[in-house]
Every structure is written in C-alpha cells, then in structure tokens.
C-alpha cells in the first residue's frame, strides 16, 4: 500500500512561505513528478513527506495514517538523495545493508536481500569497493540499492539524475521506469528537467513559489496549460507568448499586439468575449508552419509575412525564429529547409491549437 495524501501542507521559514497549502492525493503504485524551477519548494515538500523537515501546517498521510509527527524511519519510506549521501567510510555492501542492520534484520536474510538488490542493479562485482572508488552512475545505483532493499511503501527521489552526464541520464531514466514497472512502488520524483517529468510521470505537479500551478497527466498539462507559467515552463523550445489587446470588431474578435493583428477563429473568439481587453496569445513552435513564399500569406487571416532572425538546426528539426513587426516567433520546420537569416518568409499559425490567456495569465479555455 503506497497511498500518500497531502492536505493543506505548508512550510514557513520565519515569515517566508516556502510551501503554501499544497493539496495532493497520490494513488498507490503511482509515479508522480514534482516539477518546477529551483527554489519552488519541491524538494522541501519531498523532505516533509520523508520527515526530514517539519510540517508548519497541514497533514500528511501515508497508507492512511498521519505521519506529521512520526520519525523518518517509522514512515516506511526510502529516499535517494541528489548527491547520493553514501556513507564514505563503508563498503558498497555495508551501505546497502545498513538500513537492514539498523532495523535488526537477521544477518542471513540481510545478506540474501542485499545480494538480490545488488544483482538487480548490476553491482555484484562492486560489493567490497568504497564509494570514492565508484563512478557517478555506479554510486547512483548503490543509492538506489539502499532504497530498494528496504522494500518501502513509498520511494522518494530528489533529482537523482542531475549529477550524471546527459548520455547516462537517459539510460538511467529508462532503468528507473523499468524498476518502477517491476516493483510497482509509489514513487514521488523531484526534478527541474521537464523532459524527465514528461517521460516518467503518470502525473506531473508543476510548482512555483511554493504554490501548485497545475496537476495532471503530462500530455494534458502540455496541451492545456493552466496558466502562462505552465505553458512557458513545458515544451522546448519555449512557447511563443505575446501580450496584447482584444478588439471585438465587426468581422469578429482580433488580437492586436505591437502593430500585428490576428483574426481569432470562432473557438477563441468565443473565449475572447468573456475576457477583459488584456490578454495573451500562446502558440507552440510546432503549431507554426514556415511558408517559403511570403506571397502565400496574403488573404489568409492566420498567416503573416516575417523576416527570419535566427536559424537553429538540431538535426531532427530546424527551429526558425522570425519577426513580424515587433513580435518574434519561433517555428519548428523540416531540418533541410533552405532558410537564411534576413530572408522574408510567411508564418502560418495553426490557431485551432493556440491558447488564449486572460488576466493573471489564466487559460481562458479552462473552467473556473
């Protein structure tokens, strides 16, 4: 059983509020990711669940019982630290065996469970080495071994991959997912890397300034961002977001920003009616199509002539940044498209998938 419930959980350091009134129900076996920029309170929240930080307000339940005042060891949780926190003066075997020794598990059983965990992580040959003799990846796996061997009801991971090189990070990510599939343990995973969040989490919790911005499956949070922060935070390269005004003109609603006017399709026009005049339009690069012949844009309400300012080939795609009047747009195009800076091209915006944000950045498409 790995059910974790957070009710109005807050953390205050003096007057500053690091985490404010977080409500979250984490189902058993779920792999949930806490995502947000550094200093948004995600690690603090994790440590509160682990019991390494006191809860200033609110309640945390694991498997239905209140753990606010329980010792970390009594919460049946295991944690993998960002810098692994291996005991430098113990061998790999002792490091993994330590939790079992501390809770009085018989020597023989400890031996068997440690070898089994080491086997699962490919550490059989390293058991009598010391942490400083291991590579980053190996150390990370020892930290994992120490967590697994306890068979806790909840895994807590604090940016475990951030110290690994890019190539190893991808490989370890897959291993973690396979591990979760096999062990089916509830896992709360903290990261600031959106790709990790998107690829690993059943659900993502986007946080900023201690406040939960949005909770939901990755694709849904990507497709229907709750506000401009979530929209900007997810997706690489970043969403094109421009602030402007809405005119309820004769031929329907138009969005005007810095001299560029865009006629809104009926779906967005509908939403525009409820908004005040202030609004922001968000279009993802993959929803902007590059037209080599600028002439093709005249007549279409959602196509604009633009001059190319930056061309970024990334192998699988080509990112073209072009400006219309004062607004700059980044579009994703075919990798071998013949485009050079300074050239004038056409940009066709797929407004069906665009987002309209009202005052305080709220996505007008979402209720409430």
């Amino acid at each position, binding site marked *: 059983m790995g059910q974790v419930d957070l009710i109005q959980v807050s953390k205050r350091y003096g007057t500053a509020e690091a985490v404010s009134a977080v409500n979250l129900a984490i189902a058993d076996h779920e792999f949930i990711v806490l995502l947000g920029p550094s200093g948004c309170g995600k690690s603090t929240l994790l440590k509160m669940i*682990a019991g390494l930080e006191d809860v200033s307000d609110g309640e945390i339940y694991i498997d239905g019982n209140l753990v606010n005042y329980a*010792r970390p*060891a009594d919460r049946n949780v295991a*944690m993998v630290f960002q*810098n692994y926190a291996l005991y430098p003066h113990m061998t790999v075997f002792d490091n993994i065996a*330590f939790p079992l020794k*501390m809770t009085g598990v018989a020597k023989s059983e400890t031996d068997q469970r440690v070898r089994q965990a080491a086997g699962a992580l490919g550490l059989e040959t390293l058991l009598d080495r010391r942490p400083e003799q291991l590579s980053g990846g190996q150390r990370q796996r020892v930290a994992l071994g120490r967590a697994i061997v306890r068979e806790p009801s909840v895994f807590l991971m604090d940016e475990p991959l951030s110290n690994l090189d890019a190539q190893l990070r991808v490989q370890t990510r897959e291993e973690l997912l396979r591990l979760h599939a096999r062990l089916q343990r509830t896992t709360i995973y903290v990261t600031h890397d959106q790709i990790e969040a998107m690829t690993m989490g059943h659900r993502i919790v986007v946080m900023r300034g201690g406040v939960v911005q949005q909770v939901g499956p990755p694709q849904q949070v990507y497709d229907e961002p709750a506000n401009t922060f979530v929209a900007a935070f997810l997706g690489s390269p970043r969403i094109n977001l421009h602030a402007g005004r809405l005119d309820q003109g004769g031929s329907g609603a138009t969005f005007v920003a810095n001299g560029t006017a865009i006629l809104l399709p009926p779906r967005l026009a509908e939403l525009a009616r409820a908004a005040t005049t202030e609004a922001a339009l968000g279009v993802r690069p993959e929803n902007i199509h590059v037209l080599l012949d600028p002439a093709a844009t005249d007549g279409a309400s959602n196509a604009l002539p633009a001059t190319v300012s930056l061309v970024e080939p990334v192998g699988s795609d080509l990112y073209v940044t072009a400006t219309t009047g004062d607004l700059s747009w980044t579009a994703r195009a075919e990798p071998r498209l013949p485009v050079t800076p300074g050239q004038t091209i056409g940009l066709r915006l797929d407004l069906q998938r665009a987002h309209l944000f009202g005052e305080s950045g709220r996505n007008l498409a979402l209720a409430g």
Partner: protein
Amino acid sequence: MAIETEFAELRPPADITRATAARRKGPSLYLIAIYGILVIAAFIALVPFLYVISTSFKDTISLFQYPPEWIPSEPTLDNFRGLLADYPFVRWMLNSFVVASAVTIVKVVIDSMAGYAFAKMTFPGKDALFLVVLMTLMVPFAATLIPLFIIVRDLNLTNTYAGLILPALASPIGIFMMRQFIETLPTDLENAARLDGCSEFQIFRRVILPLIRPGLVVLGVFTFMTQWTSYLWPLVIGTKTEMFTLTVGVQSLRSLFTVNWGILSAGAVLSMLPLVLVFLFLQRYFIAGSIAGALKE
C-alpha cells in the same frame, strides 16, 4: 634508454602544487633562503633544550664554570640515577600518564557528543548555552582555584586520581572545536541515516564519529598535551609526593633550600620525552586532519 630519459624532461614535475618554486633547475637562491630561515628557527627552538640536556649529563659541580661547557667533558648518568633513586619519578610519570590519558579519553567522547548537539540539533536555549561555554573560557583558572579546591576537598578527592581528573573534564575548549568540526559535515549523511532507521545515538556512533576521526585526534592530542603540561591544579590538589604529576614533581626538585641543577635538568628532560614520542607518532594526523578542518566557518 636514451628515449626514456629524453622524455623525462618533458614530463611535468611530480607535484606542481607543493613546490611551485622548485620547477627551476637546481636549488635556487629562493629555496636556499627558505631552508636558511627554517634551520635558524629550528636552532632557536632547539638551543634551550640542548642546554638542559647537556646540563642533565653534567655533575652538579662542573655546572657553573666560566665559560660554560656545552658538551660536558665527562658526562655522567648520576643525575638520572639520583633522580630515579631519590624521587618517585616513575610514579610521577605514571600519574601524569594516567591523568592525561583518562582526561583525553573521556573528553574526546563527551566533547564530541556536546559538539554534535550544538552543531546539528535544535533545542531551546542552544545559543545561550553556547555563549556560556565560550564565556567560561575567559574566566582565569587561578580565580576559581579556591572554590574548586573546596568542592573537590569536600568530595574527599584530594590526593586521588579522581581529584586530578574530574575537574579537568570541565574545560570548554573541546566543545568549541568539535562543534566547528562537525558543522562542516554535510547534513544529507545524517538524513540518510535517519531514514535508514537510526536513533540519534546510532547516527552519532555509526556515522558522525567515524567521519570526524581526524578532528577527534586533533582534540585528543590537544587535550593530552594540555593535561600533561598543566601545573597549578595538580600542584594544589596533590599534597602527597606519590600523587604529584610530572610538572609538580619537577618543580618540587627546585625546593627553596637546595637546588640540585643536575637532577632538575634530568627531571626536565625525562618529563619531556613521553610527550615528544606521543607527538611524533600522532603528528601526521595532527596536521593532515588538522585544525583547519575544525575552523571552516
């Protein structure tokens, strides 16, 4: 072979950090100057000892010829023999050793515990208590001598090892050093141990203590040395000669009425020997582990 030597020059010198100046070929003027300063300083540090050592081998008559002989013409061991025969010198050395090691062992344990509490735990009155610890450093020991003596005497501990050992356990310097040292340890290690099911005491014993071993050695050497060379307290608390420590014993050789300089210097030399050996043995730790660790802000 030629190729090998030819390449030798190309390889960078073994340790670029330690001797940046040594790169130049042959002993440069710079190095000679440095060695010169060190030799002079070592000479000045050593001369007083040489004098005492040479005096300890002279028989007292030839002690004050003009000009004094540095190397005694006919060295004798009479002083050492006289010292060991007439005075319970070995007993004094045993006392000093028992007291110094007992205080060191107890101090290393209780100071690291107090240091851990001050460094890593939160409890009401923590800052106030630590200020008191620092303030007591500033009270001159001579002033508390009488009140302390009355207490120890009322406990009937005069002329006992306990009377020599217990008061020395109240010195605050160790707590200050240990707090500074333990504060440098990363908190994640403790948190990992807490998660692994350790009680505070188990964390202290299995995680903190092994990691601060260099600090413990520094504190150990420091406490042993301070106890070995302490004079005022053992002087007042030990009235029977067989309860003197070395420092008190050597000083009593200079009794008011007759001064036997040969015996006195022999006493000084013998009282120095054990401490020098302890230091040589632990010296590597004393530097490597080092006080610097204890001082990182």
